[in-house]
């Protein structure tokens, strides 16, 4: 595929460009052609590919789980129900292990985060050229198939979780208690500006690290897939070697996508547990 492009740099850039819809500087609405145009559209533009794939995968997840939930019997579980129960039990165990308060939101939240992030990550296993190529046949200029390689997606998740952290911190500790937690430790009270800076950075680091970890891992993984895909344009020998490399990296990537989804879920639970915990 790489041979269709003028240079490998162009190929990589093309693969890392989202399909962005927004207002052009001249006032017309349409898809951006290239990174500069997308940047010029400013904030009020939308990455159509990220939205479509993430919503599609989320709907897929909820559809199958809802189907299993509707047919859930207390008898011997079979097929889909067995699989869904396996995941639900796993999430339930993780939440019980890390979250020591009572909140009916946390377990479903953890389930959604884990399965959804896993599915979005799993898009990475589809060979990098297949879907963009199919889209180009349909006249779509850009297509980035892995939603979690779009920082908008990972930040969308982590900022929502950040809002929940703030909400439960205020609800459980009260505004005074929350402020005290930020201002009166770890150093003595008279050093409270220093405390505030330290704890404030710590608090803000939570959503940033959460989303950047996932984004970074998936972006790097995708980049390596793209670099491997470049080899397919370099003759039979290089192409065969690229095939082996791609297979090996995909196998390794199965571990990474699962691990990243798990880490994202576990940290979400831990952060919410910290938000609930009272400091004494």
């Amino acid at each position, binding site marked *: 595929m790489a041979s269709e492009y003028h240079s490998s740099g162009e190929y990589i850039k093309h693969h890392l460009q989202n399909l962005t819809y927004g207002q052009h500087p001249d006032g017309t609405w349409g898809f951006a052609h290239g990174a500069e145009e997308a940047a010029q559209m400013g904030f009020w533009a*939308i990455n159509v590919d990220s*939205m479509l794939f*993430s919503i599609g995968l*989320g709907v897929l997840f909820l559809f199958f*789980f809802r189907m299993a*939930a509707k047919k859930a019997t207390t008898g011997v579980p079979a097929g889909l129900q067995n699989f869904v129960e396996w995941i639900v039990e796993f999430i339930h165990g993780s939440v019980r292990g890390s979250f020591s308060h009572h909140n009916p939101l946390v*377990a479903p939240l953890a389930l*959604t985060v884990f399965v959804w992030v896993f599915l979005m990550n799993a898009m990475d296993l589809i060979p990098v050229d297949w879907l963009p190529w199919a889209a180009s046949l349909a006249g779509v200029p850009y297509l980035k198939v892995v939603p979690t390689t779009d920082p908008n997606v990972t930040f*969308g998740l982590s900022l929502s979780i950040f809002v929940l952290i703030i909400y439960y911190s205020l609800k459980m500790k009260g505004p005074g208690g929350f402020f005290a937690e930020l201002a009166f430790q770890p150093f003595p009270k008279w050093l409270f500006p220093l405390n505030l800076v330290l704890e404030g950075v710590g608090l803000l680091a939570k959503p940033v690290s959460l989303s950047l970890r996932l984004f970074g891992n998936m972006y790097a993984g995708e980049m390596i897939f793209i670099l491997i895909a470049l080899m397919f344009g370099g003759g039979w020998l290089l192409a065969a070697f690229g095939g082996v490399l791609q297979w090996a990296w995909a196998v390794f990537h199965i571990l990474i996508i699962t691990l990243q989804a798990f880490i994202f879920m576990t940290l979400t639970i831990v952060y919410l547990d910290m938000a609930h915990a009272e400091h004494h």
Partner: protein
Amino acid sequence: MNFNATLIGQSITFIFFVWFCMKFVWPPIMNALETRKKQIADGLAAADRGKHELELAAKMAGDNLRDAKAQAAEVIARAEKRAAEIIEEAKSAAKDEGERQLAAAQANIVQESNRAREALREQVAALAVAGAEKILRREVNAQTHADLLGQLKAEL
């Protein structure tokens, strides 16, 4: 890496998915899991109870069997005793009957022999008288010597 409204779209999508999961997915599955857990626990408890009851029943059956055996042995012993008694009674009754019949037969024999002897005596007396009559016909008057003949008859 430029931020745009996708951020907001993702947040809304995420919130919707979490709400849906919390409302329609998690509770029914958790419910089924909890109910099944309880059913399994109940089943195990029932199995334990059943085992216990089985042990009790086996013990009771053993006791009953032992009692029945003892009763049967007693009945048999009693029956044997009774049989021996019946045999004894029958034996003694037979003996008595035999003795009685023997005695009757002996009495009969004695009676018969007495009667025969009486008849014989009558005939011998008649024969003797007839002989004497023949001898003494001429010289002895039958009427005068009747006392003597009667005395002789009595002595025979």
